[in-house]
């Protein structure tokens, strides 16, 4: 056999091997911070990979999800503000239309059992259907999002890398978004470092932490700073919205005015506060809890007035600021993907 034909045969064999080699995506290990409960998200049904995460990140920042390509997930969930919508009491979407609730921050979602202020969504994968189809958010359909993405060369490559073939389906769009979102873990604030004996609270922070444990922790339970329940926190009804909260989902009178207990992680930057964004800063929030007018719906934990002194209020805010995780807020892995 001549040398040339040998080379050709070797070349063909090489191409065949290359063609039949399964391109494996790079697995990502989901780390549970020490002392935290087990994550609720079922990773066995959505194997995390570097490529899946990257695809989800591209989708998260892409306004292609909205009808007129103006709104992306990041429009209402900005990284630097704990993935919430800063300065907007009620989030706005397509054509400047205004919704009825304040966008929640996106953090430690792998531990959440349900989503939205009323808990209407039972699985992280299905949450994006809400903003995508809402007429005041993205006003799109998942079906049409898939059609648009299929025409994009960039996404053909990204889906191929993430799933081993370039097929683009609604399921894959949703699973990829979940892959990005579950990685948004914040567990390295000053509070966490103190708990790990790597740092120390100042005296004010320490006092604030004591006050927090007495007055706030029954709902904002450590380490996630939420008990994942729905509670009524004594807010009066905004008659322009008449939002009945959890009751809208369950039809149960007991759920009237109950809303999800939001996490307090990075709370310093997720203003404004409450489901309708009525409080601009943490001082206003604490003033609300400090003296709630009694009413029969009020849960017993809130029935006793906190009666914090001005100094105590300042200390409590100091503690809440120790929940700020700069590494999370400025992690380049979570930011707009540069191509």
């Amino acid at each position: 056999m001549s040398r040339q034909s040998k080379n050709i045969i070797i070349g063909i064999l090489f191409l065949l091997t290359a063609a039949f080699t399964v391109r494996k995506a790079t697995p990502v290990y989901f780390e549970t911070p020490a002392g935290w409960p087990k994550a609720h998200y079922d990773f066995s049904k959505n194997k995390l990979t570097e490529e899946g995460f990257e695809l989800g990140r591209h989708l998260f920042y892409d306004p292609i999800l909205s009808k007129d390509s103006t709104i992306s997930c990041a429009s209402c969930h900005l990284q630097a503000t704990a993935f919430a919508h800063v300065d907007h009491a009620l989030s706005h979407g397509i054509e400047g239309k205004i919704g009825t609730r304040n966008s929640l921050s996106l953090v430690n979602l792998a531990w959440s059992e349900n989503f939205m202020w009323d808990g209407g969504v039972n699985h992280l994968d299905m949450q994006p259907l809400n903003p995508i189809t809402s007429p005041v958010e993205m006003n799109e359909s998942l079906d049409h999002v898939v059609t648009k993405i299929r025409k994009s060369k960039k996404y053909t490559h990204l889906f191929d890398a993430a799933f081993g073939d370039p097929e683009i389906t609604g399921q894959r769009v949703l699973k990829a978004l979940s892959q990005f979102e579950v990685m948004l873990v914040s567990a390295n604030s000053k509070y966490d470092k103190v708990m790990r004996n790597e740092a120390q609270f100042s005296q004010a922070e320490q006092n604030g932490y004591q006050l927090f444990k007495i007055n706030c922790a029954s709902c904002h339970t450590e380490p996630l700073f939420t008990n994942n329940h729905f509670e009524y926190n004594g807010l009066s009804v905004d008659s322009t919205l008449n939002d009945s909260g959890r009751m809208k989902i369950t039809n149960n009178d007991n759920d009237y005015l109950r809303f999800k207990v939001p996490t307090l992680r990075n709370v310093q930057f997720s203003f404004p506060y409450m489901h309708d964004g009525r409080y601009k800063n943490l001082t206003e929030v604490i003033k609300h809890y400090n003296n709630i007018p009694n009413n029969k719906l009020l849960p017993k934990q809130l029935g006793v007035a906190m009666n914090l002194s001005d100094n105590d209020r300042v200390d409590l805010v100091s503690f809440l600021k120790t929940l700020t995780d700069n590494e999370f807020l400025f992690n380049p892995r979570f930011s707009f993907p540069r191509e």
Partner: protein
Amino acid sequence: MSKVAWLSVIFSFFFFQFVLAQEKKDSIGARFQISFRNDPLQLNKSYISDAKDTLKISTLRFYISGMKVEYTDATVTSPKKKYALLDIENPATLQIPIAANSNKKISKITFNIGVDSLMSVSGAMRGDLDASNGMYWAWQSGYINMKIEGTSKSCKTRKNEFQFHIGGYLKPNYAMRTITVAPHKSDLIIVVDVAELFSKINLSETNSIMIPGAKAMEIADYASKMFRVE
């Protein structure tokens, strides 16, 4: 053309005939025949219901899941496709292949109208269960078991539209329905008589149900009465 070529053409003709015939004979499937009383239902055609409403149907889609076929010898088989989305606009979806044919006689077929609670809480699914089919609720998770939309002069709504999106997986409003039919013919034609449903609904009063709840449960009950075998 040479003799050999002719022969091979003839041979392949018979061969494919044979294969096709085999396929027809060798598999059984359920065929859902969507009707209004005794005629096949036509989209956007005017019908008069027993409740005296003049109505036109524009959309009819529903899930059939967990089908089980029981033979007279008590053996049971199930179709490969566990969850099927049937859409009147796409006739291919109205057939669900069940199993290879056998001489055994079918005694009954059991199936669900809708999707069970497990699938409703397990995240993004593929194929017929993919949320891009528009059969999954956004604001309150769960599959829409059945969508029936259309128009009727009886509805004092925008453009006289009526919309029934029936679903719900949480008790006490679990809207999936399980029914059993006993075919007495070998061809498994399951009639879905839409007239049955509209005989129970007064469209001037009930014309928009798109959330889980007591009303959806009621419509789900009526809808299950649409299914029968000839």
